[in-house]
């Protein structure tokens, strides 16, 4: 091959290499940026006075005197809006029946929209569900709801042959000629005074329980559940995995049996996680009855079986990579095999073993399928460490799925879902980071 062609091939190869790295980087950015941006929105956002009221009533957080002052300030503007409502109600009474009927049917949606915006109206019976006791707790949501108050969404069904298009009708125009017409510009101009928006950092998102199935509050039970499940899985899988790896590398003789065991282990690593989930349900819960219901224990055991092959392989590789001379030196000094393994080989292999362990920990924290049937519930409070043997728990991975698909108000609480995603991604990243740091520290110690 002549030199020119070689150069061109060489260059194009590096171009393709750089290109694929760039594609990977862009993909990562496209995935990570919205997660981080939207996820941070669960903690850093512009809260309204409804949010502060909710926090005070549900969690006892906040300064009562300050809150009363703000409520009073907001109350002045709200009262004006309420009086417009009652004036219109009185006006409706005086209308002739047909007209009254027509306005009544239009007035209902206005009331509903206003309730969504600033909370229950005077005269409403107090709601039992917390979600109906407050207006919008987030300012950006309030602005969306304001649009719903100001405009009615209608569909243009005039063309029978195609799908209708949505268009908006100003509600003010619909109430033209009545006293209610003043309400719409009034609310539009004074919404900030009624809701007193303020930028806030709501760390409670990470430390509070949820209120009214995730409509308000935080995700602490989920974070705790994820932690329990992952740590529990490690408690079972790590010792077993390391012992199995020692057996494979130091004790097992190469033969049919060992190679069968090895390939069984590799096969296990490739089994889809939902299979482990169903296995966990059938074996741990229905057959062994490790607990009366789904529980953290059953979930941890299932996750442990799922990550066991990875831990065994990582530990095996780590042990095999310890230079043979270490072992020979130890044995030649008269040390026993057991002693050599415990004092020479394992410490030298520890960084690799731990890395494998922590990466498996991350995987255990993030898996959904194994815990659906064995441990996860969509609503439950944070459980104490004493309850892990018998109680199921909410967990981040499962609740993200639940909020994305099953929750009845999924569209209203996207921020909670994003917050959970970010929390889960951060936990897994932190675990991996700590694996890297731990490895570096131990390697340094071993060298030094």
């Amino acid at each position, binding site marked *: 091959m002549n030199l020119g062609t070689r150069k061109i091939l060489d260059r194009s190869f590096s171009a393709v290499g750089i290109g694929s790295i760039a594609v990977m980087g862009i993909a990562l950015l496209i995935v990570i940026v919205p997660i981080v941006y939207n996820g941070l929105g669960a903690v850093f956002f512009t809260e309204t006075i409804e949010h502060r009221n909710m926090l005070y009533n549900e969690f006892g957080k906040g300064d009562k005197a300050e809150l009363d002052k703000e409520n009073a300030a907001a109350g002045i503007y709200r009262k004006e809006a309420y009086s417009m409502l009652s004036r219109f109600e009185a006006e409706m009474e005086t209308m002739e029946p047909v007209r009254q009927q027509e306005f009544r049917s239009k007035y209902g949606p206005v009331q509903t929209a206003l309730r969504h915006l600033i909370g229950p109206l005077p005269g409403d019976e107090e709601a039992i569900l917390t979600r109906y006791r407050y207006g919008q707790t987030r300012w950006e949501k309030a602005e969306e709801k304001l649009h719903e108050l100001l405009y009615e969404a209608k569909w243009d069904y005039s063309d029978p042959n195609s799908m209708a298009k949505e268009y908006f009708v100003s509600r003010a125009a619909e109430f033209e000629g009545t006293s209610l017409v003043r309400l719409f510009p009034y609310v539009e101009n004074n919404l900030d005074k009624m809701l007193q928006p303020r930028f806030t950092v709501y760390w409670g998102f990470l430390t509070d329980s949820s209120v009214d199935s995730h409509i308000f509050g935080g995700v602490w039970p989920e974070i705790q559940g994820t932690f329990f499940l992952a740590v529990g899985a490690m408690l079972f899988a790590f010792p077993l995995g390391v012992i199995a790896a020692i057996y494979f590398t130091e004790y097992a003789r190469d033969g049919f049996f060992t190679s069968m065991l090895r390939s069984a282990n590799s096969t296990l690593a490739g089994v889809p996680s939902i299979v482990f989930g169903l296995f966990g349900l059938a074996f741990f819960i229905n057959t062994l009855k490790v607990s009366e219901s789904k529980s953290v224990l059953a979930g941890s055991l299932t996750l442990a079986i799922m990550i066991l092959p990875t831990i065994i392989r990582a530990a095996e590789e780590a042990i095999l990579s310890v230079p043979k001379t270490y072992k020979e030196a130890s044995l030649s000094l008269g040390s026993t095999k057991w002693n050599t393994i415990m004092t020479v080989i394992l410490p030298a292999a520890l960084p690799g073993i731990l890395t494998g362990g922590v990466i498996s920990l991350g995987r255990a924290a993030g898996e959904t399928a194994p815990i659906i049937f064995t441990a996860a519930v969509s609503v439950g409070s944070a459980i104490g460490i004493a309850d892990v043997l018998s*109680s199921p728990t909410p967990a981040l991975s499962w609740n993200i799925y639940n909020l994305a698909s099953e929750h009845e108000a999924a569209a209203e609480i996207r921020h909670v879902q994003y917050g959970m995603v970010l929390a889960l991604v951060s936990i897994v990243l932190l675990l991996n980071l700590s694996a890297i740091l731990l490895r570096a520290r131990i390697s340094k110690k071993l060298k030094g």
Partner: protein
Amino acid sequence: MNLFRKIAFSAAVLGFMAAGTADAASKIVMDGSTTVGPIAKSFASYFTKTTGVQVTVSESGSGNGAKSLINKTCDIANLSREMKDKEIAAAKSKGVNPVEHIVALDGLAVVVHPSNRVQKLSKAQIRDIYTGKVTNWNQVGGPSAPIVKIQRESNSGTQDSFVSLVMGKDNPVSKRAETQASNGAVKNRVASTPGAIGFIGLGFVDDSVKPLKVDGVEPDERTVRNGTYPISRPLFMYTNGQPTGVVKQFIDLKNTAEGKRMISELGFVNR
């Protein structure tokens, strides 16, 4: 090796903490229907708030709820259909005696995308759509657009109710119907697909989808309660034997004023 000792120690501490006994009487485990889910979740928060009893709710579908009850892995199974004879027989053979409690009534709202001009369908038309006989909206008075049929998975009580109330035994749902795994998922799919049709519990209906009149009757609280809405069904909670203690207290919540208020605030119908 210091580090090993540290690891062993922390493992021992965690193990010791985990060994503490849990008070089994003061918790309730619920499993089952996604339709009953909102009621169960709201009851659970309210119950935990007022009595301090821990209640956990899983939404894995009516079929799984029934299985959990049969395997004695839950205290209360939420079902959006009656327990099948097969399930009752399986329960009996395992020494479980399922007792049914009707929590609320629910209409199965047949929903389409709001841009669809169709306002009402008859039961026969819905059946024809789901068997695959009618494939375009213009055959039932709508625009010219193919119909995307959305159904629920076989584990779903809502699916069972729909099949028995609308389809009947001799008209299987077309194989081309798309399957979604929960009420919320069906709603999202219909809300994002202009040609779609689906069916969801009344409590899940919001502005993103349009409920149709069925046989000329609007699905709402009144028509479901008085039985004029043709596709309505009760929602159940099942316990093993007559409930006692906190489970009884929980089940009885449906008869209290607060329980009734919660059910109607969620958009379901009190009995």
